């Protein structure tokens, strides 16, 4: 337990100190989105890495959070701080109800069902023009304020977003180590065996699905308030795949892995920009290469490589 706490403290120090290194450059702005993506990757990882249930529709939940916050604050003038938890609750309940039929499915079928769900949500964003502004998007979403401070600069947003992200990381790490986490891993390994041991696999899976959706919704609300403009294009199938890639590259079942995955994939385009048109190719090749050569993700793959090539005789700890 002490080791976990130490890891979290290191993470916290890195996060809090990072802006010093960037001196308000544009990278700080990118790091704000890294924070949002970290939340989303962790949400998906809880479902995929711990409960072993794939989802290709998480961009939909992310979008629901963003649109609920956007519409209630921009159109109806509600208090953003009130809408945010409310949206997360609504999306969570929605996911809980959908979870019953959806999580009966497995593997490829689950992938396709969640994909279909994501696309339906996307179509609704596009078609309910009176509510969402349709394809041209929804503008005029207010920035968040706390006690008279408006979060309208990159630096302020950075600390706002990363405070939320840090809390999510802390909770996720604890959840993973709790009784629920162990039950989840049991389901992942063998659902039947877990059932036999008295784990109610079905309910736990559905609860995690709902929690995962609620966290995504929270990330969506925060996204809406930092961007102040949202449009359906940000919540399509491609983004669901991007999230999946973050989780896989970071490492299934590793919270900090998701953090690394989000950092890498959000910053990657910054370095690929020189190779403008090539980034989609590199993206696809990277995804395939990870699964083929490093199926455990970076957090396990890098130490494994290290063990194999750098210190062949060592017995390094390959688990993160």
């Amino acid at each position, binding site marked *: 337990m002490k080791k976990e706490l130490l890891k979290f403290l290191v993470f916290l120090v890195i996060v809090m100190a990072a802006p010093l290194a960037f001196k308000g450059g544009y990278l700080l702005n990118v790091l704000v989105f890294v924070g949002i993506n970290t939340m989303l990757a962790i949400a998906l990882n809880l479902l995929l890495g711990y409960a072993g249930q794939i989802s290709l529709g998480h961009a939909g939940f992310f979008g629901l959070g963003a649109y609920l916050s956007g519409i209630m604050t921009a159109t109806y003038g509600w208090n953003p701080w009130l809408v945010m938890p409310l949206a997360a609750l609504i999306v969570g309940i929605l996911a809980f109800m959908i979870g019953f039929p959806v999580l009966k499915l497995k593997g*490829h079928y689950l992938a*396709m069902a969640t994909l279909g769900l994501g696309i339906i949500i996307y*179509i609704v964003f596009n078609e309910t023009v009176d509510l969402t502004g349709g394809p041209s998007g929804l503008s005029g979403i207010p920035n968040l304020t706390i006690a008279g401070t408006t979060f309208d600069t990159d630096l302020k947003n950075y600390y706002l977003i990363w405070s939320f992200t840090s809390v999510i990381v802390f909770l996720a790490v604890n959840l993973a180590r709790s009784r629920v986490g162990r039950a989840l891993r049991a389901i992942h390994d063998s659902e039947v065996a877990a059932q036999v041991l008295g784990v109610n696999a079905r309910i736990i899976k559905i609860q995690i699905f709902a929690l995962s959706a609620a966290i995504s919704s929270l990330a969506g609300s925060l996204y809406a308030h930092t961007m102040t403009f949202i449009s359906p294009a940000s919540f399509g199938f491609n983004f669901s795949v991007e999230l999946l890639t973050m989780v896989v590259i970071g490492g299934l079942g590793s919270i900090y892995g998701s953090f690394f995955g989000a950092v890498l994939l959000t910053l990657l385009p910054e370095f690929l920009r020189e190779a403008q048109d090539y980034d989609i190719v590199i993206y696809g090749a990277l*995804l395939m290469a990870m699964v083929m050569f490093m199926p455990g993700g970076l957090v396990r793959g890098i130490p494994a490589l290290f063990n194999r090539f750098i210190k062949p005789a060592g017995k390094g700890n390959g688990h993160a």
Partner: protein
Amino acid sequence: MQFDQILQYTLSGLSTGAIYALIGIGFSIIYNSTGIINFAQGEFVMLGGMLTLFFMGPLKLPLWAAIPCAVLISTLTGIVFERFAIRPLRQPTPINLVIITIGGSILMRGLAMLLWGKDTQSLPPFSGDEPIAIGGATILPQHIWILGITLVIIAINKLYFYHTISGKAMRACAYNRRAAGLVGIDVRRMVMFSFMISSAMGAVAGIIVAPLTMTAYDVGVMLGLKGFCAAIIGGMSSGAATVVGGLILGVLESLGAGLVSSGYKDAIAFIILLLILFIRPQGLFGKADSERV
């Protein structure tokens, strides 16, 4: 008037549905012999159309010569994909397979974009484009080509699976892979065969539809998903049930766009997909003993 409209919706839906059916069968063939849902299936549809254009444009081949070349290259791509991405996989869990086929589809799409650009392009129709009147509705000669070629392919499929040794071997793999291996069937070769057949079928679908719908590097995504819906309605059968599934989907979409709302046309396909998965996972016509769930 109302009747004419319904007839038109149905005819349009049938030709779109035939394409969904071809793609859907491609999904089923791979699924049945390997248990993989190939998310890259749609990209073979794209390859078919784009390669035909490539052979006709820069290489100046006539249409009838460009088509077999395009199908051949697409099929080779399918084999390469199976051989170098699917087969070497050390942990072929469903999640890894989903991710690697998604990665493959992104890669193929990206390469197509780099090779042939982002523009939409149009393929000439096989035999003119003078409309043909049927009752109060009209169709194009290309629609007849689509329906005809689909029928021929399904017939060949049937012959192959029921009247040849390798076809029967593939069916054996679909029933029980381990048992098939035990009786001396080379399961790996059958897996490769299934990728060959389904990439060829995808390519043909992409070619025959391109004169109507045009083609671009990114047409594969939506068509692939619709094809999958067709396969699900058909209970993942590689025969008539998926064809009917595709036709039903095509007609429902067309009727939905005509009579209900065209904005939600795509949603219709996915709502059907979800309903079938929830209520009748064995497909509309399947028996309940399926282990799809």
